[in-house]
């Protein structure tokens, strides 16, 4: 019975871990093209969830809310690229770290004042009555998260491999200067990557909102774990993030069972610092050669 409880905890945790993986995937998209990530991505997740909630409140059916929310996220992603990233990339500086943090703060404050500081439930047509698999309970809601995550990641990867625009994306990721010499606009491609990143972040928000409820702080812990997943797996690790996401989700679920829920963030944070110390390119990442 006890083993079953442990497995149950691990499975529920792992399914949540898929959300971290999805947000981490958003980091990978922009890191591939521009070597930059949005430190305010958590606020982007949260704002998209709030926006989707407003769409639901206005009476829109769920199947329209999802693309609507994702579109909103993509627009925010484009805004972040324009306002916070482009200038410092042109100057080859790291000002984007501060600037994306600043935009996140702005978004946080806006959400507090527009939608209020309280957590609100996020209605969903997907049932949360548990299904039983070999004695383990899994809700369709949790399953929808996993399916949604894998589906959108699969679609983006397909887009990168099968379309001309996607090939341009891959070319800029491989070598920005060479791609530019071949007539591919790096600026446009980086823009595209931020749009896509916003899109997947918004989906993460919509998927996780029914489980966590929606509030200004809903993403502040989520984002730390997404950072952990991205860094531990490696910012260029491809699907390695899914494995790390599953692992970290299970780990923190067990930690909160054994040590209390206040400590649930600790393993991810420790893993992140350790991973940076031991393998700065991540468990699944490639080491780069220093050139002079």
């Amino acid at each position: 019975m006890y083993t079953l409880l442990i497995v149950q905890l691990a499975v529920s945790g792992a399914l949540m871990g898929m959300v971290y993986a999805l947000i981490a995937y958003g980091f990978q998209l922009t890191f591939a093209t521009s070597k930059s990530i949005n430190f305010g991505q958590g606020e982007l997740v949260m704002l998209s969830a709030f926006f989707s909630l407003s769409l639901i409140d206005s009476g829109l059916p769920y199947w329209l809310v999802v693309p609507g929310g994702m579109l909103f996220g993509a627009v925010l992603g484009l805004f972040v690229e324009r306002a916070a990233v482009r200038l410092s990339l042109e100057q080859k500086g790291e000002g984007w770290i501060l600037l994306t943090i600043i935009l996140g703060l702005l978004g946080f404050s806006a959400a507090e004042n527009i939608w209020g500081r309280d957590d609100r439930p996020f209605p969903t047509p997907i049932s949360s009555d548990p299904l039983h698999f070999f004695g383990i309970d899994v809700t369709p809601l949790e399953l929808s998260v996993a399916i949604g995550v894998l589906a959108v990641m699969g679609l983006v990867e397909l887009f990168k491999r099968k379309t001309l625009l996607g090939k341009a994306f891959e070319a800029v990721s491989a070598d920005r200067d060479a791609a530019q010499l071949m007539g591919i606009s790096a600026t446009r491609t980086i823009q595209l990557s931020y749009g896509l990143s916003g899109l997947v972040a918004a989906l993460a928000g919509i998927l996780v909102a029914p489980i966590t409820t929606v509030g200004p702080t809903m993403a502040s812990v989520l984002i730390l774990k997404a950072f952990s997943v991205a860094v531990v797996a490696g910012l260029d690790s491809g699907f390695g993030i899914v494995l790390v996401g599953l692992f970290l989700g299970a780990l923190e679920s067990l930690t909160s069972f054994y040590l209390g829920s206040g400590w649930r963030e600790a393993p991810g944070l420790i893993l992140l610092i350790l991973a940076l110390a031991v393998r700065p390119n991540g468990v699944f990442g490639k080491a780069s050669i220093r050139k002079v």
Partner: protein
Amino acid sequence: MWKRLLLIRGAELAALALLAAIPLMVDNSYVLGLLTLLAIYGILLIGLDVTVGYLGQVNLAQAAFLGLGAYAAGLSVAHFDFGMLAALATALVVGLIFGTLLAFPALRLEGPQFALATLSFSALSATTLNEWEGLTLGAQGLQVSRPSFLGMTLDAPEFFWLCLLLLALVWMAMRNLLSSQWGRAFEALRDSPIATDAMGVGTYRHKVAGFALASGLGGLAGGLYAFNFQYLQPQSFGWDLMVILLLGVVLGGRKSLWGALVGASLIALLPNLLSNRGLFQIFSAIGLLIALAAGGQGLLKKTTRPFQALAPVVAMGILMVGSLIVENTEDWRKAIFALMLFSVVVGLPEGLMGFAARFLAKLFHIEPPRLPAPASLDTVLPKRIANGGALLELRGLERYFGGVKAVDGVSMTVQAGEIHGLIGPNGSGKSTAVNVISGLYVPTGGDMLLRGKSLPVGSLFKVARTGVARTFQNLQLFGELSAMDNVMVALKDVYRSPLPLVLLGLARGEEKRARAAALALLELVGLGDQARSLAKDLTYGDQRFLEIARALARKPELLILDEPAAGLAHPDVNKLMEIIKRIHERGVSIILIEHHMDVISELCGIVTVLDGGKIIAAGTAEQVKRDPKVIEAYLGVVDDPAGAAAPAQAG
């Protein structure tokens, strides 16, 4: 000279005296509280500026160190009955220890990874302070009593003077430190970690020291914070405070003690500013005017891009409009911080003090300090007697990248006192060989001997310490440092004073000697009149020469020049050859990688030719030029080798 010293020191003393005198003139506990907070934030921001300004890394852990220091001081009083000084020392040491612990994993990290590591550390420390209720009482908060100071009970004004005194001490110590070799090393490692190691300065040591110092000051400020408020809660040291601290450093101005003080005053006053609507309206109007003026000026002079000029105006415009519409500005405090920070980061990257310093220097005609007379070259680069014999021996050196054999079994000997040419077509393995010798790459196989002893492998730093110095094909100068500072960073055998003496300002003598030595080397390469120019502002040719002067500061036995003539105009090539001859006359052995055959022919007694990672020929320049294998490597297969021209300017 005296005017400069008088004005700068005078301004510091005046500011200190003014701050100290306020409690005597104004009997107002609220004002006193603000002043105390200003002094505490001052110490905190001077620390944060070491990482954000000098090391150039986004440090998101300073608020956490403030918290750790505060709890350490508070708990040491509660549990061990420590006095004020002992408790403050505890706070400082706790900051230092945790800073060092975090610095070690964060060592190898740059940019976003470093920011993430510090972010995780803050989150971890917040979790611990919250959850370890047995020690910290968690979210309930911890009452702290203010201990006695050397037996005296301090009330508010006296405690403020203590904070101010500590701020003044920290100010002096940091001024001494940051204007010494330590400060230069911090900046060098921000601009090029590779070159910092290659100049034998030691990236790790300085990065750890800089970060630990910043954290220690954070801890000390935390101790004062605890005894000022006498009540601690974990959430006081969270993300909100961190953003405010960054605002302080960036707004005040990076790499500036005055900037930290200005920033500290601003963030101490911010809450007042936000709670008073009229004041806030005036403030945002001023902000908008500054943004308009700065942006307009930048656009007219075409020094800024349109985005850089317009974005702050838009942000400040939103702030202005918001201040008129919004009823309760407190609700929007985060957005207000964000808009202000955004405007400063984009539109005024040097901060208020960076801007003001230039203005004031012009206003008072403050001249930079005078340069000393250059030292004699005999002390800076003592003449070596070249006694012949093998200096550097490579035996079967190999370096593979995956399946690519970049260096594939190279054996060669560099005799002491010679200029040894290393040539070969692009991709023949010259640069890889040099990178292996100088320690950037670990060899896949083979041996390297310097004067018969094995050369350290895979560490630029260790190789630099053996007397091998190098320049870089793709320049690796410290762009934000002056030409003189670039050379001074690398100087060998000059900086001997231990850290405490440096902090006390008792290391000025060696600093003067270092300046004289650096000038001598700059004159050797013809840059004597450019000593004060920033490296990034020099012409391309002068940057190449500066790289050579910097390498010479290591007093090298063996100097490796990696394509020093690449991209140089003809007159500069001649100048370069003169410089190399002069260096050779001082008895320095040289490995010269070059594509210019005329340079090689004129300078090198012996030339080794690489192709495909292997040596294909060796001999005098004339011999190699006629070697059919060399001609084939450069020009392809030729039917009649005797008739082929020498590969002048190949590559």
